[in-house]
């Protein structure tokens, strides 16, 4: 049994794969600070690698948010602030971090789940109907998950009623100017497969999404990002329940694409958890693989040079970012 476990571990060892093909992936310039400001969410999706739900209470404090803003201010090479969660809008200091980052002339992206605008805060019932106009007023790039252009797949992954609410929310974003030509307001959608399979080609799926959403709902958006489901946490549990974990990992390993590997997002991004710890990416964050450069790195001992010279921590889940056309927070990496 133990031997079998070791064999599986070796088969899915990302570092060994890099060694075999003689590929090194050192960090590049840090361009993006991705900050997870809350694990609370109004949804509890089947695939969520963050295990977010309405009952999560973890929130980034104002002190930690100020430290992130200080890092953005002190490091002009970090051009982007990427806010994620949970539903980042459920952090009480959400508006503050957006407004302050814009004052620093940073490009602000928000991983917006669409339904929070309709649902509001699940514990306080505070309305979030102001969000589309708030995003427009601050020129935020909105990046929203919509697993499919039909109700079946979307609700299966994200919960009953999510598709109808997402459509309503997308219409509000369009009304505020998002996805509309010449407004400069960008609305990108994110697709990820509902089950244990790889995403379809980004370009062809984007055409389908655009056609279907426009014809059926008069909805417009800019780009579709295809993302591979990461075999960690909730999705891994689902795979194990279905007896499909090993098969899914084999699929990812067999689809390893060196060109996608060179473009993995961890090379140009740092991920910050709600408590200020620094990770190579959101997935490493959820696995507790904190950046260690002599000592655990946090926003409170931030050192750009040290971080730029760090050794990125890779593990078996990294095959998720390098399979097929690759996968990143900005969708497919290579053709």
């Amino acid at each position: 049994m133990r031997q079998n476990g070791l064999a599986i571990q070796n088969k899915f060892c990302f570092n060994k794969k890099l060694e075999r093909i003689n590929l090194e992936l050192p960090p590049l310039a840090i361009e993006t600070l991705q900050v997870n400001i809350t694990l609370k969410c109004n949804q509890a999706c089947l695939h969520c690698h963050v295990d977010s739900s309405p009952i999560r209470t973890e929130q980034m404090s104002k002190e930690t948010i100020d430290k992130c803003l200080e890092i953005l201010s002190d490091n002009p090479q970090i051009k982007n602030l990427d806010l994620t969660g949970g539903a980042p809008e459920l952090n009480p200091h959400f508006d503050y971090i957006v407004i302050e980052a814009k004052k620093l002339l940073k490009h602000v992206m928000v991983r917006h789940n669409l339904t929070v605008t309709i649902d509001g805060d699940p514990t306080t019932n505070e309305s979030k109907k102001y969000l589309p106009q708030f995003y427009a007023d601050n020129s935020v790039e909105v990046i929203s998950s919509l697993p499919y252009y039909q109700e079946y797949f979307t609700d299966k992954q994200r919960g009953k009623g999510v598709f109808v609410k997402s459509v309503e929310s997308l219409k509000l974003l369009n009304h505020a100017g998002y996805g509309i030509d010449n407004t400069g307001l960008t609305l990108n959608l994110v697709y990820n497969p509902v089950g244990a399979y790889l995403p379809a080609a980004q370009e062809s799926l984007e055409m389908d999404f655009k056609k279907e959403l426009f014809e059926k709902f008069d909805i417009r958006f800019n780009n579709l990002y295809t993302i591979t489901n990461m075999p960690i946490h909730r999705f891994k549990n689902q795979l194990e329940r279905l007896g499909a974990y090993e098969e899914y990992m084999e699929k990812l390993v067999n689809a390893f694409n060196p060109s996608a590997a060179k473009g993995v997002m961890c090379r140009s991004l740092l991920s910050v958890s709600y408590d200020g710890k620094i990770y190579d990416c959101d997935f490493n964050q959820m696995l507790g693989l904190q950046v260690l450069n002599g000592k655990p790195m946090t926003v409170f001992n931030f050192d750009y040079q040290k971080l730029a010279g760090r050794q990125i921590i890779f593990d078996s889940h990294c095959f998720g970012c390098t399979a097929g056309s690759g996968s990143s927070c900005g969708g497919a990496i290579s053709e």
Partner: protein
Amino acid sequence: MNYYESKDLGRFAEVGKFKPELMEKFFSYYNDATGTDGALSKREKALIALAISHFKQCPYCIDAYTTASLEAGSNPDQMTEAIHVAAAMAAGMNLVHGVQMLNILEKSGA
């Protein structure tokens, strides 16, 4: 041992254990015909293959082309329509032979 084991699909290439050159030719033709975008897209080809998989009732192929169709961007509505085309064709092929039945009925004066 069962005649059909899902893991056996991954062993398909082992059929080339003997006379490997024939299997190589088959895989080359097979991959060119089914796995590339051409006048038909990979998505369309996967749906055709899914329909044929049902027509010929091959469990390996149904497994492979259900996944291939999803990974090519098809949805369950489209995939279900494809297998209905196969089912309707199969039914039509049975029923069209009813003309032969009618011919024999006529010939026999019934």
